[in-house]
Protein backbone atom coordinates (compact mmCIF):
# COMPACT_ATOMS: atom_id res chain seq x y z
CA UNK A 1 0.00 0.00 0.00
CA UNK A 2 2.65 2.36 1.12
CA UNK A 3 4.83 1.23 -1.71
CA UNK A 4 2.14 1.92 -4.30
CA UNK A 5 1.53 5.38 -2.92
CA UNK A 6 5.22 6.21 -3.07
CA UNK A 7 5.46 5.02 -6.66
CA UNK A 8 2.41 7.07 -7.60
CA UNK A 9 3.82 10.14 -5.93
CA UNK A 10 7.17 9.68 -7.59
CA UNK A 11 5.49 9.20 -10.94
CA UNK A 12 3.43 12.31 -10.43
CA UNK A 13 6.50 14.25 -9.42
CA UNK A 14 8.32 13.08 -12.52
CA UNK A 15 5.41 14.10 -14.71
CA UNK A 16 5.21 17.51 -13.10
CA UNK A 17 8.94 17.94 -13.47
CA UNK A 18 8.81 17.00 -17.12
CA UNK A 19 5.88 19.33 -17.71
CA UNK A 20 7.58 22.22 -15.99
CA UNK A 21 10.77 21.54 -17.92
CA UNK A 22 8.83 21.57 -21.16
CA UNK A 23 7.03 24.76 -20.25
CA UNK A 24 9.75 26.79 -18.67
CA UNK A 25 13.19 25.43 -19.43
CA UNK A 26 12.47 23.28 -22.49
CA UNK A 27 14.08 23.31 -25.87
CA UNK A 28 12.69 25.18 -28.80
CA UNK A 29 13.81 26.72 -32.03
CA UNK A 30 12.71 29.02 -34.82
CA UNK A 31 14.27 28.98 -38.25
CA UNK A 32 14.44 31.83 -40.68
CA UNK A 33 13.63 31.45 -43.51
CA UNK A 34 11.58 28.25 -43.32
CA UNK A 35 11.11 28.24 -47.08
CA UNK A 36 14.17 28.59 -49.29
CA UNK A 37 13.27 29.43 -52.87
CA UNK A 38 15.69 28.29 -55.56
CA UNK A 39 15.56 30.78 -58.41
CA UNK A 40 17.94 31.57 -61.25
CA UNK A 41 20.42 33.40 -59.05
CA UNK A 42 20.36 30.93 -56.13
CA UNK A 43 23.84 30.28 -54.84
CA UNK A 44 23.30 28.82 -51.41
CA UNK A 45 21.61 30.63 -48.53
CA UNK A 46 22.00 31.51 -44.88
CA UNK A 47 19.75 29.85 -42.38
CA UNK A 48 19.31 31.58 -39.04
CA UNK A 49 18.29 29.37 -36.15
CA UNK A 50 17.22 30.95 -32.88
CA UNK A 51 15.81 29.29 -29.76
CA UNK A 52 16.71 28.11 -26.33
CA UNK A 53 17.95 25.04 -24.50
CA UNK A 54 17.72 24.36 -20.76
CA UNK A 55 20.26 26.28 -18.75
CA UNK A 56 23.53 24.39 -18.48
CA UNK A 57 23.01 22.44 -21.71
CA UNK A 58 24.74 23.22 -24.95
CA UNK A 59 22.95 23.53 -28.27
CA UNK A 60 23.88 21.46 -31.30
CA UNK A 61 22.07 22.23 -34.57
CA UNK A 62 21.53 19.55 -37.18
CA UNK A 63 20.06 19.92 -40.66
CA UNK A 64 19.26 16.69 -42.48
CA UNK A 65 17.57 15.59 -45.67
CA UNK A 66 15.32 12.57 -45.77
CA UNK A 67 17.10 9.21 -45.42
CA UNK A 68 17.62 7.51 -48.76
CA UNK A 69 19.09 4.39 -50.30
CA UNK A 70 22.10 5.41 -52.32
CA UNK A 71 24.44 3.42 -54.55
CA UNK A 72 28.07 4.20 -55.19
CA UNK A 73 30.95 2.69 -57.09
CA UNK A 74 33.82 1.54 -54.96
CA UNK A 75 37.31 1.93 -56.38
CA UNK A 76 39.82 -0.79 -55.98
CA UNK A 77 42.97 -2.07 -57.62
CA UNK A 78 42.63 -4.19 -60.71
CA UNK A 79 45.64 -6.41 -61.47
CA UNK A 80 47.22 -4.96 -58.35
CA UNK A 81 48.15 -1.62 -59.94
CA UNK A 82 45.27 0.05 -61.74
CA UNK A 83 42.66 1.97 -59.76
CA UNK A 84 39.17 1.74 -61.09
CA UNK A 85 35.55 1.30 -60.08
CA UNK A 86 35.35 -2.34 -59.16
CA UNK A 87 32.08 -2.86 -57.39
CA UNK A 88 28.82 -1.25 -56.51
CA UNK A 89 28.05 -0.58 -52.86
CA UNK A 90 24.82 0.48 -51.26
CA UNK A 91 24.22 2.67 -48.24
CA UNK A 92 20.85 2.61 -46.50
CA UNK A 93 19.10 5.45 -44.77
CA UNK A 94 21.63 8.18 -45.42
CA UNK A 95 20.43 11.76 -45.98
CA UNK A 96 21.64 13.69 -49.05
CA UNK A 97 22.52 16.66 -46.83
CA UNK A 98 23.77 16.65 -43.24
CA UNK A 99 24.93 19.94 -41.74
CA UNK A 100 25.89 20.45 -38.09
CA UNK A 101 26.49 23.64 -36.17
CA UNK A 102 28.02 23.69 -32.70
CA UNK A 103 29.23 26.23 -30.17
CA UNK A 104 32.78 24.98 -30.59
CA UNK A 105 33.33 24.90 -26.81
CA UNK A 106 33.45 21.18 -26.14
CA UNK A 107 36.43 19.40 -27.65
CA UNK A 108 34.36 16.82 -29.43
CA UNK A 109 35.08 15.24 -32.78
CA UNK A 110 31.52 15.64 -34.00
CA UNK A 111 32.07 13.69 -37.20
CA UNK A 112 32.74 10.61 -35.11
CA UNK A 113 30.38 11.23 -32.24
CA UNK A 114 27.08 9.42 -31.95
CA UNK A 115 25.31 12.73 -32.40
CA UNK A 116 27.17 13.45 -35.62
CA UNK A 117 27.61 11.47 -38.79
CA UNK A 118 27.93 8.20 -36.86
CA UNK A 119 24.23 8.48 -36.05
CA UNK A 120 23.34 7.49 -39.63
CA UNK A 121 25.93 4.74 -40.04
CA UNK A 122 23.60 1.85 -39.37
CA UNK A 123 25.19 -1.47 -40.28
CA UNK A 124 27.37 0.00 -43.01
CA UNK A 125 30.93 -1.25 -43.44
CA UNK A 126 33.46 0.96 -41.61
CA UNK A 127 35.68 1.61 -44.60
CA UNK A 128 32.83 2.31 -46.98
CA UNK A 129 31.12 4.62 -44.50
CA UNK A 130 34.33 6.60 -43.93
CA UNK A 131 34.82 7.02 -47.67
CA UNK A 132 31.19 8.03 -48.04
CA UNK A 133 31.66 10.80 -45.44
CA UNK A 134 34.83 11.92 -47.23
CA UNK A 135 32.98 12.15 -50.53
CA UNK A 136 30.06 14.05 -49.00
CA UNK A 137 32.37 16.46 -47.17
CA UNK A 138 34.43 17.05 -50.30
CA UNK A 139 31.35 18.04 -52.25
CA UNK A 140 29.90 20.15 -49.44
CA UNK A 141 26.85 18.02 -48.67
CA UNK A 142 28.01 17.07 -45.19
CA UNK A 143 29.66 19.59 -42.95
CA UNK A 144 30.34 20.33 -39.31
CA UNK A 145 30.68 24.01 -38.56
CA UNK A 146 32.15 24.60 -35.14
CA UNK A 147 31.58 27.88 -33.37
CA UNK A 148 28.47 28.99 -35.25
CA UNK A 149 26.24 28.74 -32.17
CA UNK A 150 26.36 31.79 -29.85
CA UNK A 151 24.57 32.07 -26.50
CA UNK A 152 22.91 34.89 -24.68
CA UNK A 153 22.85 35.05 -20.88
CA UNK A 154 20.55 32.47 -19.37
CA UNK A 155 17.24 33.69 -18.10
CA UNK A 156 14.60 31.84 -16.12
CA UNK A 157 16.29 28.48 -16.63
CA UNK A 158 16.54 28.96 -20.42
CA UNK A 159 19.67 29.48 -22.37
CA UNK A 160 18.90 31.40 -25.58
CA UNK A 161 21.10 30.76 -28.60
CA UNK A 162 21.47 31.98 -32.12
CA UNK A 163 23.16 30.13 -34.97
CA UNK A 164 23.78 30.68 -38.65
CA UNK A 165 24.16 27.77 -41.02
CA UNK A 166 25.37 28.04 -44.61
CA UNK A 167 23.07 26.10 -46.92
CA UNK A 168 25.00 24.71 -49.89
CA UNK A 169 23.98 25.58 -53.45
CA UNK A 170 23.58 21.90 -54.27
CA UNK A 171 20.36 21.45 -52.23
CA UNK A 172 17.52 19.73 -53.97
CA UNK A 173 13.89 20.64 -53.82
CA UNK A 174 12.39 18.93 -50.80
CA UNK A 175 11.81 18.90 -47.09
CA UNK A 176 14.66 19.04 -44.60
CA UNK A 177 14.58 18.61 -40.84
CA UNK A 178 16.31 21.20 -38.71
CA UNK A 179 16.74 20.19 -35.10
CA UNK A 180 18.38 21.50 -32.01
CA UNK A 181 19.81 18.99 -29.56
CA UNK A 182 20.13 20.06 -25.95
CA UNK A 183 23.33 18.26 -25.03
CA UNK A 184 24.41 17.61 -21.48
CA UNK A 185 27.57 15.63 -20.66
CA UNK A 186 27.76 14.34 -24.22
CA UNK A 187 24.22 13.04 -24.21
CA UNK A 188 21.04 14.37 -25.72
CA UNK A 189 18.77 15.69 -22.98
CA UNK A 190 16.13 17.15 -25.22
CA UNK A 191 15.31 17.69 -28.89
CA UNK A 192 13.17 20.11 -30.83
CA UNK A 193 12.74 20.15 -34.60
CA UNK A 194 11.32 22.25 -37.41
CA UNK A 195 10.85 21.60 -41.10
CA UNK A 196 12.73 23.52 -43.74
CA UNK A 197 11.27 23.49 -47.25
CA UNK A 198 13.16 24.21 -50.42
CA UNK A 199 11.29 24.92 -53.62
CA UNK A 200 12.27 25.75 -57.19
CA UNK A 201 10.82 28.98 -58.56
CA UNK A 202 11.00 30.98 -61.76
CA UNK A 203 13.13 29.70 -64.61
CA UNK A 204 14.52 26.66 -62.75
CA UNK A 205 10.99 25.56 -61.84
CA UNK A 206 9.80 25.97 -65.43
CA UNK A 207 12.79 24.19 -66.99
CA UNK A 208 12.72 21.36 -64.50
CA UNK A 209 9.02 20.74 -65.16
CA UNK A 210 9.61 20.96 -68.92
CA UNK A 211 12.51 18.49 -68.77
CA UNK A 212 10.58 15.90 -66.77
CA UNK A 213 7.04 16.29 -68.11
CA UNK A 214 7.78 16.85 -71.80
CA UNK A 215 11.18 15.26 -72.11
CA UNK A 216 11.15 14.60 -75.85
CA UNK A 217 10.05 18.15 -76.66
CA UNK A 218 12.64 19.45 -74.23
CA UNK A 219 15.42 17.54 -75.99
CA UNK A 220 14.31 18.73 -79.42
CA UNK A 221 14.05 22.33 -78.18
CA UNK A 222 17.52 22.12 -76.64
CA UNK A 223 18.95 20.91 -79.96
CA UNK A 224 17.15 23.59 -82.01
CA UNK A 225 18.33 26.38 -79.75
CA UNK A 226 21.90 25.07 -79.88
CA UNK A 227 21.79 24.98 -83.69
CA UNK A 228 20.32 28.48 -83.84
CA UNK A 229 23.07 29.75 -81.53
CA UNK A 230 25.69 28.17 -83.82
CA UNK A 231 24.03 29.69 -86.92
CA UNK A 232 23.76 33.10 -85.30
CA UNK A 233 27.41 33.13 -84.30
CA UNK A 234 28.39 31.98 -87.76
CA UNK A 235 26.35 34.79 -89.39
CA UNK A 236 27.72 37.46 -87.05
CA UNK A 237 31.24 36.48 -87.98
CA UNK A 238 30.49 36.42 -91.69
CA UNK A 239 28.98 39.89 -91.62
CA UNK A 240 31.86 41.30 -89.70
CA UNK A 241 33.79 40.90 -92.91
CA UNK A 242 35.70 37.85 -91.78
CA UNK A 243 37.21 37.29 -95.22
CA UNK A 244 37.49 33.69 -96.29
Amino acid at each position, binding site marked *: MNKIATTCLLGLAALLLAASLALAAGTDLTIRPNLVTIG*TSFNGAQLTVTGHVPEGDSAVIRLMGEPQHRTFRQKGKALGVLWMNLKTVELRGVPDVFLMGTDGVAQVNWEHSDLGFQSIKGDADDLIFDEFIKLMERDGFYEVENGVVAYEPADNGERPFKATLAIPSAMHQGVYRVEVLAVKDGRVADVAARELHTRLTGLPEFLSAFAFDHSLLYGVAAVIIAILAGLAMSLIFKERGGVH
Partner: protein
Amino acid sequence: MEARRDPEKGMQTVEEFLMFHMYLPIAGNSVNVFLVFALGGFVGLLSGIFGVGGGFLMTPLLIMFGIPPTVAAASDSNQIVGASTSGCLAHYRLGNVDFKMGFLLLIGGVLGGFAGVQVIKVLRAMGNADFLINITYVLMLGGVGAYMFLESVQSLRKKAPEASATAAAPKKKSRYAAMMEALPLQTDFVKSGVRLSMLMPLLLGVMVGILAAIMGVGGGFIMVPIMVYLLRMPMHVVVGTSLFQILFTCINVTILQSYTNHTVDFVLAVLLLLGSTLGAQFGTRISRKLKGEQLKILLASLVLVVMVKMLLNLLLTPDVLLAYAGGH
Protein backbone atom coordinates in the same frame (compact mmCIF):
# COMPACT_ATOMS: atom_id res chain seq x y z
CA MET B 1 19.91 38.04 -68.15
CA GLU B 2 19.68 38.45 -64.43
CA ALA B 3 21.94 41.48 -64.60
CA ARG B 4 19.62 43.37 -66.91
CA ARG B 5 16.68 42.79 -64.66
CA ASP B 6 18.54 44.33 -61.79
CA PRO B 7 20.53 47.21 -63.22
CA GLU B 8 20.99 49.03 -59.90
CA LYS B 9 22.91 46.37 -58.09
CA GLY B 10 24.10 43.86 -60.65
CA MET B 11 27.59 43.75 -62.11
CA GLN B 12 28.86 47.20 -61.43
CA THR B 13 32.39 46.04 -61.08
CA VAL B 14 34.45 43.48 -62.89
CA GLU B 15 34.77 41.54 -59.68
CA GLU B 16 31.02 41.20 -59.35
CA PHE B 17 30.82 39.96 -62.91
CA LEU B 18 33.50 37.38 -62.27
CA MET B 19 31.62 36.12 -59.23
CA PHE B 20 28.17 36.00 -60.85
CA HIS B 21 26.47 32.66 -60.30
CA MET B 22 23.51 31.00 -61.93
CA TYR B 23 21.48 28.03 -60.69
CA LEU B 24 21.26 24.99 -62.96
CA PRO B 25 17.86 23.30 -62.55
CA ILE B 26 18.75 19.81 -63.77
CA ALA B 27 22.27 19.64 -62.38
CA GLY B 28 20.86 20.91 -59.05
CA ASN B 29 23.76 23.20 -58.32
CA SER B 30 24.88 26.70 -59.13
CA VAL B 31 27.93 27.60 -61.18
CA ASN B 32 30.07 30.63 -61.80
CA VAL B 33 28.78 32.02 -65.10
CA PHE B 34 32.09 33.50 -66.16
CA LEU B 35 34.02 30.29 -65.50
CA VAL B 36 31.59 28.18 -67.53
CA PHE B 37 31.61 30.72 -70.36
CA ALA B 38 35.42 30.62 -70.47
CA LEU B 39 35.45 26.82 -70.40
CA GLY B 40 33.00 26.75 -73.32
CA GLY B 41 35.17 29.19 -75.24
CA PHE B 42 38.29 27.12 -74.76
CA VAL B 43 36.69 23.83 -75.78
CA GLY B 44 34.97 25.53 -78.76
CA LEU B 45 38.37 26.78 -79.87
CA LEU B 46 39.73 23.24 -79.81
CA SER B 47 36.83 21.87 -81.83
CA GLY B 48 37.24 24.60 -84.45
CA ILE B 49 40.95 23.86 -84.78
CA PHE B 50 40.96 20.07 -84.65
CA GLY B 51 37.43 18.93 -85.44
CA VAL B 52 36.97 17.19 -82.09
CA GLY B 53 34.00 17.63 -79.78
CA GLY B 54 36.07 18.20 -76.66
CA GLY B 55 33.95 16.04 -74.38
CA PHE B 56 37.11 14.39 -73.06
CA LEU B 57 38.08 17.74 -71.55
CA MET B 58 34.74 19.31 -70.77
CA THR B 59 33.07 16.50 -68.84
CA PRO B 60 35.77 16.07 -66.15
CA LEU B 61 36.03 19.84 -65.66
CA LEU B 62 32.29 20.19 -65.23
CA ILE B 63 32.36 17.39 -62.66
CA MET B 64 35.04 19.36 -60.84
CA PHE B 65 32.63 22.34 -60.72
CA GLY B 66 30.09 20.20 -58.87
CA ILE B 67 27.95 18.99 -61.77
CA PRO B 68 26.84 15.32 -61.54
CA PRO B 69 28.74 13.17 -64.10
CA THR B 70 25.70 12.10 -66.12
CA VAL B 71 24.41 15.67 -66.37
CA ALA B 72 27.87 16.92 -67.32
CA ALA B 73 28.21 14.46 -70.20
CA ALA B 74 24.68 14.95 -71.55
CA SER B 75 24.72 18.76 -71.33
CA ASP B 76 28.08 18.75 -73.02
CA SER B 77 26.56 16.91 -76.00
CA ASN B 78 23.91 19.62 -76.20
CA GLN B 79 26.61 22.27 -76.20
CA ILE B 80 28.63 20.48 -78.90
CA VAL B 81 25.58 20.70 -81.18
CA GLY B 82 26.00 24.48 -81.12
CA ALA B 83 29.78 24.51 -81.34
CA SER B 84 29.89 22.06 -84.24
CA THR B 85 27.14 23.96 -86.13
CA SER B 86 29.23 27.08 -85.76
CA GLY B 87 32.50 25.37 -86.67
CA CYS B 88 31.02 23.27 -89.45
CA LEU B 89 29.53 26.32 -91.18
CA ALA B 90 32.80 28.20 -90.92
CA HIS B 91 34.65 25.23 -92.43
CA TYR B 92 31.95 24.81 -95.08
CA ARG B 93 32.64 28.35 -96.30
CA LEU B 94 36.28 27.38 -96.67
CA GLY B 95 35.30 24.32 -98.73
CA ASN B 96 36.42 21.94 -95.98
CA VAL B 97 33.36 19.71 -95.61
CA ASP B 98 33.02 16.51 -97.65
CA PHE B 99 29.30 15.80 -97.28
CA LYS B 100 29.36 12.52 -99.19
CA MET B 101 32.06 11.11 -96.96
CA GLY B 102 30.42 12.62 -93.90
CA PHE B 103 27.07 10.96 -94.58
CA LEU B 104 28.62 7.54 -95.14
CA LEU B 105 30.64 7.80 -91.94
CA LEU B 106 27.56 8.97 -90.11
CA ILE B 107 25.42 6.04 -91.23
CA GLY B 108 28.20 3.68 -90.21
CA GLY B 109 28.58 5.51 -86.90
CA VAL B 110 24.90 5.19 -86.01
CA LEU B 111 24.91 1.45 -86.78
CA GLY B 112 28.13 1.03 -84.82
CA GLY B 113 26.62 2.95 -81.90
CA PHE B 114 23.78 0.46 -81.60
CA ALA B 115 26.24 -2.42 -81.76
CA GLY B 116 28.47 -0.77 -79.14
CA VAL B 117 25.59 -0.42 -76.69
CA GLN B 118 25.00 -4.16 -76.96
CA VAL B 119 28.70 -4.85 -76.43
CA ILE B 120 28.60 -2.73 -73.26
CA LYS B 121 25.64 -4.74 -71.98
CA VAL B 122 27.54 -7.98 -72.45
CA LEU B 123 30.66 -6.54 -70.79
CA ARG B 124 28.65 -5.27 -67.82
CA ALA B 125 27.08 -8.67 -67.43
CA MET B 126 30.56 -10.17 -67.40
CA GLY B 127 31.44 -7.73 -64.65
CA ASN B 128 34.66 -6.16 -65.85
CA ALA B 129 33.35 -3.47 -68.20
CA ASP B 130 35.15 -0.64 -66.42
CA PHE B 131 38.48 -2.38 -66.67
CA LEU B 132 38.13 -3.04 -70.40
CA ILE B 133 36.86 0.48 -71.10
CA ASN B 134 39.75 2.09 -69.27
CA ILE B 135 42.37 -0.09 -70.90
CA THR B 136 40.87 0.42 -74.38
CA TYR B 137 40.86 4.15 -73.77
CA VAL B 138 44.49 4.37 -72.72
CA LEU B 139 45.74 2.01 -75.44
CA MET B 140 43.74 3.72 -78.17
CA LEU B 141 44.80 7.21 -77.18
CA GLY B 142 48.40 6.16 -76.65
CA GLY B 143 48.67 4.26 -79.93
CA VAL B 144 46.88 6.82 -82.08
CA GLY B 145 48.65 9.77 -80.45
CA ALA B 146 52.12 8.28 -80.72
CA TYR B 147 51.65 7.16 -84.34
CA MET B 148 50.26 10.53 -85.42
CA PHE B 149 53.01 12.40 -83.64
CA LEU B 150 55.88 10.36 -85.10
CA GLU B 151 54.37 10.28 -88.57
CA SER B 152 53.87 14.05 -88.75
CA VAL B 153 57.31 14.83 -87.35
CA GLN B 154 58.83 12.56 -89.99
CA SER B 155 56.88 14.03 -92.88
CA LEU B 156 57.60 17.59 -91.69
CA ARG B 157 61.31 16.79 -91.82
CA LYS B 158 61.22 15.00 -95.13
CA LYS B 159 58.92 17.16 -97.13
CA ALA B 160 59.81 20.28 -99.02
CA PRO B 161 57.77 23.10 -97.49
CA GLU B 162 55.61 23.44 -100.63
CA ALA B 163 54.36 19.89 -100.88
CA SER B 164 50.85 19.27 -99.60
CA ALA B 165 49.62 16.31 -97.60
CA THR B 166 47.83 14.73 -100.56
CA ALA B 167 51.05 14.19 -102.50
CA ALA B 168 52.25 11.53 -100.08
CA ALA B 169 49.51 8.97 -100.70
CA PRO B 170 49.99 7.73 -104.29
CA LYS B 171 53.76 7.27 -103.97
CA LYS B 172 53.90 3.63 -103.09
CA LYS B 173 51.22 1.01 -103.31
CA SER B 174 50.99 -0.81 -100.04
CA ARG B 175 48.95 -3.93 -99.53
CA TYR B 176 46.36 -1.75 -97.82
CA ALA B 177 46.04 0.46 -100.92
CA ALA B 178 45.68 -2.58 -103.17
CA MET B 179 42.96 -3.97 -100.94
CA MET B 180 41.11 -0.68 -100.98
CA GLU B 181 41.15 -0.63 -104.77
CA ALA B 182 39.85 -4.17 -104.98
CA LEU B 183 36.67 -3.33 -103.06
CA PRO B 184 33.47 -2.83 -105.06
CA LEU B 185 31.45 0.43 -105.30
CA GLN B 186 34.44 2.63 -106.06
CA THR B 187 33.48 6.28 -106.15
CA ASP B 188 35.09 9.73 -106.25
CA PHE B 189 35.06 11.93 -103.18
CA VAL B 190 35.60 15.28 -104.85
CA LYS B 191 36.15 17.49 -101.80
CA SER B 192 38.64 15.08 -100.30
CA GLY B 193 40.29 14.36 -103.65
CA VAL B 194 40.29 10.59 -103.11
CA ARG B 195 38.73 7.63 -104.92
CA LEU B 196 37.50 4.89 -102.61
CA SER B 197 34.94 2.19 -102.22
CA MET B 198 31.81 3.46 -100.49
CA LEU B 199 32.15 0.48 -98.14
CA MET B 200 35.30 1.93 -96.58
CA PRO B 201 33.79 4.95 -94.81
CA LEU B 202 30.74 2.88 -93.94
CA LEU B 203 32.77 0.14 -92.25
CA LEU B 204 35.14 2.52 -90.52
CA GLY B 205 32.12 4.50 -89.34
CA VAL B 206 30.74 1.32 -87.76
CA MET B 207 34.06 0.70 -86.04
CA VAL B 208 34.27 4.24 -84.61
CA GLY B 209 30.62 4.03 -83.56
CA ILE B 210 31.28 0.84 -81.58
CA LEU B 211 34.36 2.27 -79.90
CA ALA B 212 32.68 5.58 -79.15
CA ALA B 213 29.72 3.85 -77.54
CA ILE B 214 31.98 1.62 -75.45
CA MET B 215 34.20 4.47 -74.34
CA GLY B 216 31.31 6.85 -73.84
CA VAL B 217 32.81 9.61 -75.96
CA GLY B 218 31.80 11.38 -79.17
CA GLY B 219 34.48 9.69 -81.19
CA GLY B 220 36.14 12.75 -82.76
CA PHE B 221 39.46 11.61 -81.38
CA ILE B 222 39.26 8.28 -83.16
CA MET B 223 37.48 9.57 -86.26
CA VAL B 224 40.05 12.24 -87.11
CA PRO B 225 43.07 9.89 -87.31
CA ILE B 226 41.02 7.33 -89.23
CA MET B 227 40.07 9.88 -91.84
CA VAL B 228 43.66 11.02 -92.12
CA TYR B 229 45.37 7.64 -92.29
CA LEU B 230 42.86 5.10 -93.51
CA LEU B 231 40.74 7.27 -95.78
CA ARG B 232 43.74 9.43 -96.76
CA MET B 233 41.81 12.67 -96.66
CA PRO B 234 43.64 16.03 -96.43
CA MET B 235 43.78 17.31 -92.83
CA HIS B 236 41.72 20.45 -93.38
CA VAL B 237 38.86 18.54 -94.98
CA VAL B 238 39.09 16.02 -92.15
CA VAL B 239 38.47 18.75 -89.56
CA GLY B 240 35.41 20.14 -91.37
CA THR B 241 33.94 16.72 -92.15
CA SER B 242 34.51 15.50 -88.60
CA LEU B 243 32.58 18.49 -87.23
CA PHE B 244 29.73 17.72 -89.63
CA GLN B 245 29.59 14.17 -88.36
CA ILE B 246 29.90 15.16 -84.70
CA LEU B 247 26.97 17.57 -85.12
CA PHE B 248 24.60 14.74 -85.96
CA THR B 249 25.96 12.35 -83.37
CA CYS B 250 25.43 14.94 -80.65
CA ILE B 251 21.93 15.86 -81.80
CA ASN B 252 21.06 12.19 -81.42
CA VAL B 253 22.68 11.92 -77.97
CA THR B 254 21.06 15.12 -76.68
CA ILE B 255 17.55 14.03 -77.63
CA LEU B 256 18.03 10.49 -76.35
CA GLN B 257 19.48 11.66 -73.02
CA SER B 258 16.72 14.23 -72.52
CA TYR B 259 14.08 11.67 -73.30
CA THR B 260 15.32 8.68 -71.35
CA ASN B 261 17.46 10.04 -68.51
CA HIS B 262 16.48 13.72 -68.07
CA THR B 263 20.13 14.62 -67.78
CA VAL B 264 20.42 17.55 -70.20
CA ASP B 265 20.72 20.82 -68.28
CA PHE B 266 19.59 23.47 -70.68
CA VAL B 267 20.90 26.43 -68.68
CA LEU B 268 24.33 24.84 -68.44
CA ALA B 269 24.32 24.02 -72.17
CA VAL B 270 23.40 27.60 -73.09
CA LEU B 271 26.14 29.06 -70.90
CA LEU B 272 28.66 26.72 -72.51
CA LEU B 273 27.25 27.45 -75.97
CA LEU B 274 27.77 31.19 -75.69
CA GLY B 275 31.46 30.50 -75.21
CA SER B 276 31.91 27.55 -77.52
CA THR B 277 30.18 28.91 -80.64
CA LEU B 278 32.41 31.95 -80.36
CA GLY B 279 35.47 29.79 -79.71
CA ALA B 280 34.70 27.59 -82.73
CA GLN B 281 34.80 30.61 -85.04
CA PHE B 282 38.22 31.65 -83.81
CA GLY B 283 39.35 28.03 -83.87
CA THR B 284 38.46 27.72 -87.55
CA ARG B 285 40.52 30.81 -88.32
CA ILE B 286 43.48 29.43 -86.42
CA SER B 287 43.07 26.06 -88.13
CA ARG B 288 43.26 27.74 -91.54
CA LYS B 289 46.57 29.38 -90.69
CA LEU B 290 48.22 26.09 -89.74
CA LYS B 291 49.62 23.49 -92.12
CA GLY B 292 48.14 20.01 -92.14
CA GLU B 293 51.26 18.56 -90.52
CA GLN B 294 51.32 21.16 -87.78
CA LEU B 295 47.67 20.46 -87.03
CA LYS B 296 48.45 16.76 -86.76
CA ILE B 297 51.34 17.30 -84.37
CA LEU B 298 49.27 19.55 -82.13
CA LEU B 299 46.36 17.14 -82.07
CA ALA B 300 48.71 14.24 -81.41
CA SER B 301 50.21 16.11 -78.45
CA LEU B 302 46.76 16.81 -77.09
CA VAL B 303 45.78 13.15 -77.42
CA LEU B 304 48.96 12.11 -75.62
CA VAL B 305 48.37 14.57 -72.78
CA VAL B 306 44.87 13.18 -72.28
CA MET B 307 46.27 9.66 -72.34
CA VAL B 308 48.88 10.48 -69.67
CA LYS B 309 46.21 12.07 -67.51
CA MET B 310 44.04 8.96 -67.79
CA LEU B 311 46.98 6.74 -67.01
CA LEU B 312 47.81 8.78 -63.90
CA ASN B 313 44.19 8.47 -62.78
CA LEU B 314 44.59 4.73 -63.03
CA LEU B 315 47.92 4.58 -61.25
CA LEU B 316 47.65 7.14 -58.45
CA THR B 317 45.71 6.34 -55.30
CA PRO B 318 42.46 8.33 -55.40
CA ASP B 319 41.56 10.70 -52.54
CA VAL B 320 38.17 9.14 -52.09
CA LEU B 321 37.52 5.48 -52.76
CA LEU B 322 33.84 5.95 -53.56
CA ALA B 323 32.31 7.57 -56.62
CA TYR B 324 28.74 8.42 -57.53
CA ALA B 325 27.12 5.66 -59.52
CA GLY B 326 26.14 6.51 -63.06
CA GLY B 327 29.29 8.26 -64.26
CA HIS B 328 31.87 6.73 -66.49
